[in-house]
């Protein structure tokens, strides 16, 4: 529809007809040229369409359902990464609350989905970096045990290999100063802290 309420394309036809009526009424032949009416639309290009107003509201349900499913999958992945990281510390798993409990808008669901995806990606990458370093530490413990004199004073704890507890491997000289002078080295393995005793232990 054009601005006057006419279907698009009618304007051109009407002007031609009007031109012809006017020229026949004036009785002066082609004094009112039809071509003027004909050219105008072509010189200006095709008539621009006014923006169409939607007649019905869009159905958000399929999009919302998809987003909710995506959030469900991402939450599952985040939970898996969380379980894999234990007992390591220093990971961030929280995704900002949206002031619930309430129905989130489509835009909020999209933002939540994106935040969750970013969080899962970050956590997975951090875990991957951490496990790489832990693997290096494990290899180093093997090397320390094989050749302690090549790793003097090196100390690696359970924290460094992603295990719980305070156990650590420490390369120390055998018999103190004499060991240092004689290059006698060994790996001392500490079994960790004594059992924790709370203030109300029986």
């Amino acid at each position: 529809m054009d601005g006057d309420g006419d279907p698009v394309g009618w304007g051109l036809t009407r002007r031609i007809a009007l031109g012809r009526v006017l020229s026949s009424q004036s009785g002066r032949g082609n004094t009112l040229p039809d071509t003027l009416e004909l050219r105008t639309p072509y010189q200006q290009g095709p008539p621009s369409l006014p923006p169409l107003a939607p007649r019905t509201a869009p159905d958000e349900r399929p999009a919302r359902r998809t987003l909710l499913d995506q959030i469900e999958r991402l939450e599952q992945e985040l939970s898996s990464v969380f379980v894999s990281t234990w007992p390591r510390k220093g990971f961030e798993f929280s995704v900002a609350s949206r002031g619930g409990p309430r129905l989130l808008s489509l835009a909020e669901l999209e933002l939540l989905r994106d935040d969750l995806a970013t969080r899962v990606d970050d956590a997975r990458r951090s875990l991957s970096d951490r496990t790489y370093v832990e693997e290096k530490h494990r290899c180093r413990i093997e090397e320390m045990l094989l050749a302690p004199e090549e790793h003097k004073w090196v100390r690696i704890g359970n924290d460094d290999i992603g295990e719980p507890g305070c156990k650590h491997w420490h390369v120390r000289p055998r018999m103190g100063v004499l060991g240092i002078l004689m290059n006698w080295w060994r790996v001392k393995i500490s079994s960790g802290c004594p059992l924790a005793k709370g203030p109300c232990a029986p």
Partner: protein
Amino acid sequence: MGWVDHELADEFPDLALWTVRVEAQSGRSPEPVRERLGELSSRITGGHVIHMRQDPVPWAYRVFWRQIGIDPDTTRTPVEQIALDRLQWGGLRSRNLLDDAITIATFETGVPVVALDADLVGDQLGLRLTGADELLGGSGRPLSARQIVVADEDRCLAVLSGEVAEERGVTPSTTNMAIGAIQVKGVPRISVEEALWTVTETLSVGG
């Protein structure tokens, strides 16, 4: 089974509120209930709590919490909160018969349970979204629009995340209770029924 507002039902087709009315009174928990609470706390270990979020029922509520705009790592689901309290305090402390019954039921099944004074609420409980300028319990704190609440025909009674309207909640003088359990996608009906049954059974031990 309670009603669910059509807009909520469209968004979460598996969301449901199961209710049961019990003639019981709260008060100090009897010894069997306290013992059961003690046994329960000895079953909760650090590893158990860590892996809890991968168990089907607690995980289903985590997902639901996330989908309704709550961060479950900040505002814990009820079952996770119980487990965390156990780790923090070194045991599950007995508070009163109703709270102990809810703790036992929630931890055993993973299903959140809410209790109201049946004499102060309407006959039909359900879940709906709040409108503009609504107050919790009819005269409590103002609620923001489109929050998900447990409601009766006239007013909001509790926010879905657990806050119950003070004037509609259970008090020592309550003799009839309305117990509600919320079911979400991924939670089998039997878990919800077991949660309600556990609460009523525990209350009957005390009464």
